[in-house]
Each structure stands twice: as structure tokens, then as C-alpha cells.
């Protein structure tokens, strides 16, 4: 994967495949501390302790259609190649939390990439799932919660053209602002 945001999309899709209807994604960039952290939490079916140990093995998968499972092994490799690591906590029946840490200025760290595209793909491709997204760059933050949007639009689906245009615009301009290092707080 060329971008960390693609790993995020992939891991979140795993959670949805595991039956999650709530996904929480947090990206925290602390440039002074030279650290980038990613957390993806879902309320899907979860996995057992012994599966957690095996999940970064590309030749292990719980799926039956194919005998290889690449997603988490790729994220683990992306973190380790730049002095970071990945941790998984999971409980059957409750959900899974994936944490990845990266050394911010490591030459082998993949760029975060287009988080707005990742979030629009998730939110609009999976309209039955609620997403809470938070992206912090030093002191600035972009936060988006599809439950709040659903409430504001009084039950209109996120797939309604106007709702999703609003979501696309909010994400794109919010990410742009973060990239420019704007001081505006996006949280109301």
C-alpha cells in the first residue's frame, strides 16, 4: 500500500466484515514528539487471544475463501519498517482495536495520504455503519461523526446526494486546513 490511509481503509473494512456497525478512527500526528499514531476500533465479532498472535502472519486467515490474509500483516510491516509497531487488542463478541505507531520523520514511513478519500469511501460505501473520525495534527483537529450528521439531517441516509456532498466537502476542506496547519478548531 502506498499510503497509510489505505491501510486504515482496509482495517476498517475488516471490522465491517466482522459485523461491526460502529467504527472509530483516530489519526494523531505529533510532529514535535516525532510520532504518528493510528487507532481503528470496531464493535465487530472480535477474535480470540490465540488468533491475535497469528493475525500478522500473512498465511493465516479466518476466511475460508482463500488461505492468505494480507491486511494486518501489511500494516504491521509498514509500521515496523519505520521504527514503529502495531498492537491488536480484541475480545470475542466485543470488538477489536488496532493501534499502529510510526516514527514521523522516518525516511521509510509511508505518507498518510488522502484521508478524506478513505473516509468518504467508508462512510458512503457502508451507509449502515456509523463512523467517528478524528484527525489531529499538533494543535488542530478535524472531527466528524456520522451519528451527528444523521441527526442533523433528521434521518436522511448518508447516501442522499446532498448529505454526501456535505460529507465530502467537510472532509476535503477539513483535511486541507489541517495540511496547511490552520489553527481553526473544527470541533464546534
Amino acid at each position: 500500500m502506498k499510503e497509510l490511509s489505505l491501510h486504515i481503509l482496509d482495517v476498517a473494512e475488516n471490522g465491517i466484515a466482522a459485523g461491526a456497525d460502529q467504527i472509530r478512527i483516530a489519526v494523531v500526528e505529533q510532529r514535535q514528539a516525532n510520532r504518528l499514531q493510528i487507532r481503528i476500533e470496531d464493535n465487530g465479532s472480535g477474535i480470540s487471544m490465540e488468533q491475535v498472535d497469528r493475525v500478522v502472519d500473512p498465511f493465516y486467515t479466518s476466511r475460508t475463501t482463500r488461505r492468505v490474509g494480507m491486511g494486518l500483516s501489511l500494516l504491521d510491516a509498514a509500521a515496523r519498517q519505520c521504527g514503529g509497531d502495531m498492537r491488536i487488542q480484541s475480545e470475542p463478541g466485543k470488538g477489536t482495536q488496532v493501534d499502529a505507531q510510526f516514527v514521523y520523520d522516518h525516511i521509510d514511513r509511508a505518507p498518510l495520504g488522502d484521508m478524506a478519500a478513505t473516509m468518504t469511501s467508508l462512510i458512503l460505501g457502508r451507509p449502515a455503519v456509523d463512523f467517528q473520525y478524528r484527525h489531529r495534527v499538533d494543535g488542530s483537529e478535524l472531527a466528524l461523526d456520522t451519528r451527528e450528521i444523521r441527526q442533523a439531517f433528521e434521518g436522511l441516509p448518508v447516501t442522499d446526494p446532498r448529505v454526501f456532498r456535505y460529507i465530502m466537502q467537510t472532509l476535503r476542506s477539513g483535511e486541507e486546513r489541517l495540511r496547511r496547519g490552520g489553527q481553526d478548531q473544527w470541533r464546534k
Partner: protein
Amino acid sequence: MAKMSIEELKRIKEETTRETSLRTGTARIKITVHMGTCGIAAGAREVMNALMEEMAPAERADIRVVASGCMGMCSSEPNVTVEAEGEEPIVYQHMNANKMRQVFHRHVLEGEVQTDFALAKI
């Protein structure tokens, strides 16, 4: 762009409810973008975003876009399946943003299957 206020959102909601009540509201065409690890690595996200960009101005409530997992044909990713009511589903292969725009306009909106990009009929 300035952040929209709740009042604006409510106004949009009212307008939209009026408009959608004029339409049947049921999906007639389903477009599935396959988003397994293989699809994502091959560029499915850009395909999905191009599709969203085309969907927004089209304002068609009868077209539904969904993401799904890997369909088992990883070597031909990104794959997109178009299912129009009463017609055989068409799987497109090796999609990119431009091919997606073409498929959306020619096949989804105008009903002409883009055989050059098609992998199979299901």
C-alpha cells in the same frame, strides 16, 4: 468552505424530502465497488471517489453505491459490479477513475454496457 449550520442542514433536508417523495425511492441500479485488501491496494478507493463525484450532480435516488469485500478475482482488481434491474450483472475489471466515470455515464445512466472493460457477465 465555511462550516454549514444546523439550520442550513435542516433546510436541505426539507428540500430533499420534497424532491425524493416525487420519485419512487427504490434502488433500480446497484453499483458495487469491491474493497478487499487486493482491491484497495490496486486503487479501488480512487474508483469509489470518482464514482461519488459523478453521483453527486446526477441526483439519482434510484442508484445505489455500495462497497463490498473481495470477490476472489484479485488479479483483475479494482473490480466493479453494475447490476441494473432486469439485466445480468456486469463485472468490470482493472478499473480506474476515468473508466469508472465512463461506465457511470454510458452504462449506468445510458444503459450501454462497456464491453471493453468488462470481465464477465454473472
